[in-house]
């Protein structure tokens, strides 16, 4: 018999989508959070509305590790369609919760795991009279079962229901009855288990919030002053624009009038061109999309780059190429963003890794766009954007908007008095960033002609080779200036450590845990969390200071490593790519396994993947 763990548990819930499991899972997750136990959840859902398999994985970790756990302790097997595989997703010594209204098929029986049967169908038939609600409420039964088995009390469940449905007592009651039925069934049968216990941690999650990256980005955009928001629905980015639609009217109030325009465009091409038009005309404009949308937007991103128009583009990455895996996570559009559009182009990319940075970098993205008069990307991924993450509260840093080198009519008057002439694309300050005016500026010297075709420093049409090359070189100089401004990486350095790990975005949590595990097994690493492109001097120094750099990214072709090697070809040989691209949120074990594989030359026992019994750890 193993010793039960305290507050260290992973639960995977297999259901059919469209059966209300999202509500049940959310209640379970929030209950654990309310107990004060650090926890995270990963929703692995299909690109479908009803009838396809979905898994929800909850991890409770007293140590505060938020990555998807590689080992499943408990499998709630509530989807017949995936049961045959789900049986083998749980670890040896783990538990399977199933509906025993009908006997379990022989093929679903397996040694080494504990089966807990609960007659969910029978119970729900007694509670809920025949109605479409029955199927939705059946899933509440397992909430009660797990609560009883692992130590969540009904008072906590009630409090969560109260938070969720406070204004609808009937809804609270109907859910509570179902949860209680599952709870009581376990108690009546006297089921027990020896896997682990959840115990309240007083103030354990005090001051912590739970939200999704897309919501945090939406709020950051509103606080950053986004006023023209044009988008086209695409998973996993839609919830960002929808969160803006939700929060904008209540946050930005003006005497009965809208201080914003939100447009659901006819396609991504229209969306990006609308924000280009709005950015040109002086509004803080943005769109959000995913890989396929970014592919469509490419031409006009080049226009905004070449004509020097500020706008912000949120990319919530999913599995590609083509339609790929629309509801799974990936970081495989890095190069598509960095070099977006034809011709010589390079773009600023901001890379959040947690809820706070989603908010902060989204807010600041508009400053970067206006300062550098160029499209700025905020690089997200589905894991970060659509999963629930616990976090410190979002915080507004009070700083004035940086509108960059934007000239008002009065400033132009001043310029004239000083004998200075406004030249739209002239590098007045030697930093590659020209001065800008916006339409409506009443000064007669303010207007200019914007175009995506060749132009000189006075914005006149030009096919002259000197003008063209000058423009390209200045744009590159501007990009080099941006290198000094973009958010610096967060570096953790310890003397004498020869191996460095670099990661970004949603890989941060699994890497954090992996480094602890590696350290425990004798491999110390330093760490650099990348927060922006272009790469900065701090990153160069970090790479230089180590013998080997493990660069963790979620794509097949080591796209970020290519950018490193392009910047610093001399150091390319140091980079060992850790590549995870199965579409699921990164697990700690996979990071450990790949780093160990390189550092040891072969696998150590503790990092071995017990493949013979496990199919995948969904």
């Amino acid at each position: 018999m193993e010793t039960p763990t305290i507050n260290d548990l992973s639960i995977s819930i297999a259901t059919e989508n469209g059966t209300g499991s999202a509500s049940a899972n959310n209640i379970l997750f929030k209950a654990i959070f309310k107990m004060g136990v650090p926890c995270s959840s990963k929703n692995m859902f299909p690109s479908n509305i009803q009838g396809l398999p979905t898994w929800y994985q909850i991890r409770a970790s007293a140590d505060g590790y938020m990555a998807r756990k590689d080992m499943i302790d408990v499998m709630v097997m509530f989807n017949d369609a995936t049961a045959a595989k789900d049986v083998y997703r749980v670890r040896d010594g783990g538990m399977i919760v199933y509906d025993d209204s009908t006997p379990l098929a022989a093929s679903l029986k397996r040694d080494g795991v504990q089966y807990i049967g609960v007659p969910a169908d029978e119970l729900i038939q007694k509670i809920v009279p025949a109605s479409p609600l029955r199927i939705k409420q059946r899933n509440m039964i397992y909430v009660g079962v797990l609560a009883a088995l692992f130590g969540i009390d009904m008072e906590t469940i009630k409090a969560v229901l109260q938070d969720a449905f406070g204004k609808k007592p009937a809804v609270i009651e109907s859910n509570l009855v179902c949860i209680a039925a599952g709870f009581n069934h376990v108690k009546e049968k006297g089921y027990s288990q020896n896997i682990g216990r959840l115990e309240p941690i007083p103030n354990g999650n005090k001051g912590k919030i739970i939200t999704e990256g897309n919501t945090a980005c939406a709020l950051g955009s509103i606080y950053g002053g986004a006023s023209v928001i044009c988008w086209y629905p695409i998973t996993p980015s839609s919830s960002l624009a929808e969160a803006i639609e939700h929060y904008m009217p209540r946050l930005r109030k003006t005497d009965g009038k809208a201080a914003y325009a939100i447009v659901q465009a006819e396609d991504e091409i229209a969306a990006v061109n609308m924000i280009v038009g709005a950015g040109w005309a002086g509004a803080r404009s943005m769109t959000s999309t995913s890989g396929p949308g970014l592919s469509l937007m490419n031409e006009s991103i080049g226009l905004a780059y070449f004509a020097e128009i500020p706008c912000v583009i949120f990319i919530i990455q999913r599995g590609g190429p083509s339609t790929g895996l629309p509801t799974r996570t990936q970081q495989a559009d890095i190069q598509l963003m960095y070099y977006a559009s034809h011709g010589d182009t390079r773009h600023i990319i901001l890379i959040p890794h947690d809820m706070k940075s989603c908010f902060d970098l989204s807010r600041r993205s508009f400053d970067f766009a206006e300062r550098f008069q160029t499209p700025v990307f905020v690089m997200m991924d589905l894991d970060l954007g659509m999963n629930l993450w616990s976090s410190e509260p979002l915080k507004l840093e009070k700083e004035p908007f940086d509108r960059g080198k934007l000239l008002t009519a009065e400033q132009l008057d001043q310029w004239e008095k000083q004998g200075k002439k406004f030249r739209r694309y002239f590098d007045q300050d030697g930093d590659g960033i020209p001065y800008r005016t916006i339409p409506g500026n009443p000064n007669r010297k303010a207007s200019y002609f914007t175009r995506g075709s060749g132009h000189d420093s006075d914005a006149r049409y030009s096919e002259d080779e000197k003008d063209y090359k000058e423009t390209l070189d200045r744009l590159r100089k501007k990009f080099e200036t941006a290198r000094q401004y973009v958010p610096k990486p967060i570096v953790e350095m310890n003397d004498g450590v020869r191996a460095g790990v670099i990661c970004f975005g949603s890989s941060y949590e699994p890497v954090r845990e992996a480094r602890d595990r590696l350290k425990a097994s004798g491999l110390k690493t330093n760490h650099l969390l990348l927060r922006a492109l272009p790469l900065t001097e701090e990153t160069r120094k970090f790479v230089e200071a180590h013998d080997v750099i493990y660069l963790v990214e979620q794509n097949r072709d080591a796209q970020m490593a290519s950018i490193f090697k392009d910047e610093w070809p001399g150091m390319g040989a140091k980079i060992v790519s850790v590549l995870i691209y199965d579409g699921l949120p990164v697990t700690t074990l996979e990071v450990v396994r790949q780093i160990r594989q390189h550092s040891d030359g072969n696998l150590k026992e503790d990092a071995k993947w017990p493949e013979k019994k496990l199919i995948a750890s969904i």
Partner: protein
Amino acid sequence: MAGEKVNRVNLTEKDYEGSASTMCRGCGHDAISASIMRAFFESSVDPRKVVKLSGIGCSSKTPAYFLSQSFGFNAVHGRMSAVATGANLANHTLMPIGVSGDGDTAAIGLGNFCHMMRRNVNITYVVENNGVYGLTKGQFSATADKGSVMKGGKINDIPALDICELAIILGATYIARSFSGDRKQLAPLLEGALAHKGSAILDVISPCVTFNNHEGSTKSLKYVKDHLDPIHDVDFIPFYENIEADYKEGTDHMVTLHDGSRIVLHKLGKDYDPSNKMQALNMIHASVAEGKFLTGLIYYDPNRLDFATELNLGDTPLAELGQDVLQPPAELLDRINADFMK
């Protein structure tokens, strides 16, 4: 300047000029630019309140050739309607004029064009329609008529897309067709479009003298002139001119525009009410069947609100709102944080 005629904002016709045109000599587009300058001058519009937009193609070059005091934006191929939509939302107090061609509007940009009209974005949108891709040297466009012959002898066997018909169906609210060579008709139609708040679409047949002006082409200068089918003569009376219109009950039709300006349509044979959608569509069909170019104010809807109004935008353009309005107070974020703790 002494002696020169000035308008109500104290500008001369010269103040509405742009840089020198680089169109082919005799190109219809230059004549349209001239009508555009005339219309802006006559309407006394301050060029600083105008934004000029275009896509790609010969026609899309032309905004550089008028109103040099206005901001201009030459976007990518087919996307002017979307760029204009965004610019209009950022600053709805500006007056946008878009110039596009039949390739830019009716082929690559068709989707965005349709949705701009569906939204009734405020814009004067001029399609310089010659049935041919000029800048790429003479391919058929989507408005080339069935049976029209290309310079090399190739015959177009796909029916033309009718921009006015499309505009009516999709919800544009001021729809006219004219001919580049008819400034007497085109200039007042443009003035009317400028006074209108909503999508004003002007399909202007503008023969390409280089690639589509030969025997067998249905968009040659000669063919077009021979097949014009004007519904009415058009007069524009600006809002500030409190004069009695030359208006005859029974034979004329008066249209009052959003800013109080009026258009008087003097009947030429047929009885025509431009607010009747079905009649407009029927008329276009009948004219196409006869191989003619129906010109005049084809359709007008004074009631539909423009997009910026639908979106409830305030008087101050979004582009001019400061951080005090755009950035909500920190306390509201604290409240959201509290919700997220539940």
